[in-house]
């Protein structure tokens, strides 16, 4: 029998300052990309505040036992945001820091696109638009078991173009899955360019409302708004909830911020140093 552990939101990061945690999170994003020579850095940065709010203040995870039945379920639908999840989970002590230097290497468990063959990753997220359905199933199981844990599904705005998302949205609303929380990262970009130019998905908030969901729209790069929204969706009211987090690709780094061609970025030590110098007065070195 595994030892009973009381899980607290944010785990061992719960009492550490979010600014410090965020800086380390971004260091890890750069470190992983540097080792690999490239990475989904712009996504790692646009999702940073939401990931921090989730992993360091909200999710109840068990770094010692990924199968802990009481844990919150975090399902990464948009599999290439793996870099964000690895960074946050390394910070929580779920994985060894050594793994950062193996991101997307052959045989590494830090696959470029996260799948559930990696311990601690709940679903295989590469084929976009499938994660919310998995979340509906997990949330239904939670209801069957009267469980206290919640199901979180993290998606991207590009996924909203997949029909399966709306099949799942309809069923979640119909089944009143108020133990299901979805966060959608709206960075406005897809591989072919701006989503509004390729195949527009707006009005997103109205769409989700009409499917019977609680909808909160925030600036996803504003920590206070992130924390407030995650707090708001904790109280069950007979509806699933979605946080629409508007973000900027490559947020906060001048040569990535809001650029249209940064879906997948080549990276090296020089760029890491340059990026870190923009984030800290000390030029990236820990004070």
């Amino acid at each position: 029998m595994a030892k009973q552990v009381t899980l607290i939101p944010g785990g061992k990061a719960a009492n550490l300052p979010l600014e410090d945690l965020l800086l380390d999170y971004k260091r890890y994003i750069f470190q992983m990309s540097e080792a690999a020579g490239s990475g989904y850095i712009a996504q790692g940065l646009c999702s940073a505040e939401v990931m921090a709010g989730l992993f360091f203040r909200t999710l109840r995870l068990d770094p010692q036992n990924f199968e802990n039945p009481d844990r919150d379920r975090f399902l990464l639908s948009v599999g290439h945001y793996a870099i964000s999840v690895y960074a946050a989970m390394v910070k929580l002590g779920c994985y060894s820091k050594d793994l950062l230097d193996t991101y997307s290497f052959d045989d590494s468990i830090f696959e470029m696109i996260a799948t559930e063959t990696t311990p601690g990753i709940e679903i295989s997220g590469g084929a976009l638009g499938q994660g919310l359905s998995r979340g509906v199933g997990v949330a239904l199981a939670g209801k069957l078991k009267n469980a206290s844990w919640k199901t979180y599904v993290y998606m991207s705005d590009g996924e909203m173009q997949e029909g399966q998302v709306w099949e799942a949205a309809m069923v979640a609303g119909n089944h009143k899955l108020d133990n299901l929380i979805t966060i959608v990262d709206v960075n406005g970009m897809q591989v072919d360019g701006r989503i509004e130019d390729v195949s527009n998905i707006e009005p997103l908030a109205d769409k989700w409302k009409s499917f019977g969901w609680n909808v909160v729209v925030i600036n996803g790069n504003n920590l206070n708004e992130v924390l407030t929204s995650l707090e708001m969706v904790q109280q069950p009211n007979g509806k699933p909830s979605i946080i629409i987090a508007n973000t900027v690709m490559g947020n906060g780094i001048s040569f990535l911020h809001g650029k249209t061609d940064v879906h997948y970025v080549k990276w090296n030590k020089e760029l890491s140093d340059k990026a870190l110098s923009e984030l800290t007065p000390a030029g990236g070195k820990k004070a």
Partner: protein
Amino acid sequence: MKEIMNAVMYNGTNELEKKMKSYGNSLASLGEKHEDVVCLTADLTSILEVDIFRDHFPNRFFPMGMAEQNMIGTAAGLAQENQVPFASTFACFLTRRGYDQIVNSIAYPQLNVKLTGLMPGISSVGGASHQAIDDIAIMRAVPNMKIIDLADATESAIAPQLAYETQGPVYIRLRRGLLPVLFDPKQYKLEWGQSYLLRKGTDVCIVTSGLMTENALAAAMILERNGVSASVLHVPSIKPIDEEGIVEAAASCRAVLTLDNHSIIGGLGSAVAEVLMDHKVSRPFKRLGIPDQYGKAASMAYLSRLFELDPDQIAHNSVALLEGNKKITVSANWEPGGEKTTGWEMEWKN
């Protein structure tokens, strides 16, 4: 390979007992025994025989509406939380609309989801849109997937329990409604990777599964009356497949004829061909099934005739194969023996 001649209820002249909703009743019994069993449907609930489960266990029944992709993903989510989901709809919609979901949400993570595809091939009168002629082909290509093609009421009654006892993804392919009892339930045991020798002969080995098995038995009896000795090897477990049994049965005959209620591309016939090549067994060989074309909205009797799957046509093709594919004349006394396969309309009414 098991020799089960004594368990075969069909003798060419007798009227077979028929049972209604064997699969659905058995699924409900499984739900009675195991609280972790849950059911999902994409509409069509009563046609899928899952209405019985729904009426007994409404809190474990999840109607997903006409949305197969989400049904498959939701089933995967339930399975990762240790429920045992049976997700069903017509075989064509299940495997075609949900293929990427089956691969990425179920098969790759090896989740414990049971997929039931009903009314495969010519057992649907709905035409090309409703006729799964490619489901075995595409499901065979999915790693971690097990496939079973059910022939009668006995197999359909065993299948839910077998699937439940099997850890991991399973694809169950079956007809619905009123089905003949081809195998004696007291003697018959359905197992993975097993094949069953229903008749033992020396001239032609007819390899069959599902809907085709009754016709294969009838064909073997026509052949016997015409002095041709036929084996009938029944292969419900399409994957894993009984390589040893197929090799043994094929090697003991002069020719091999396979039957598919499916396209001849990628079905049982293809699987048998692969096995025989792999094991260096060379025999005159023919696949009967749906040629590389679509079906159409027509009765099963019509389609069976069209695709040369009636007993007399199977017999005719067997002789042609043995005679080196020479044109032969069908003898006047070559008539389908015994009960003809049930028509879809009849099942629908029931």
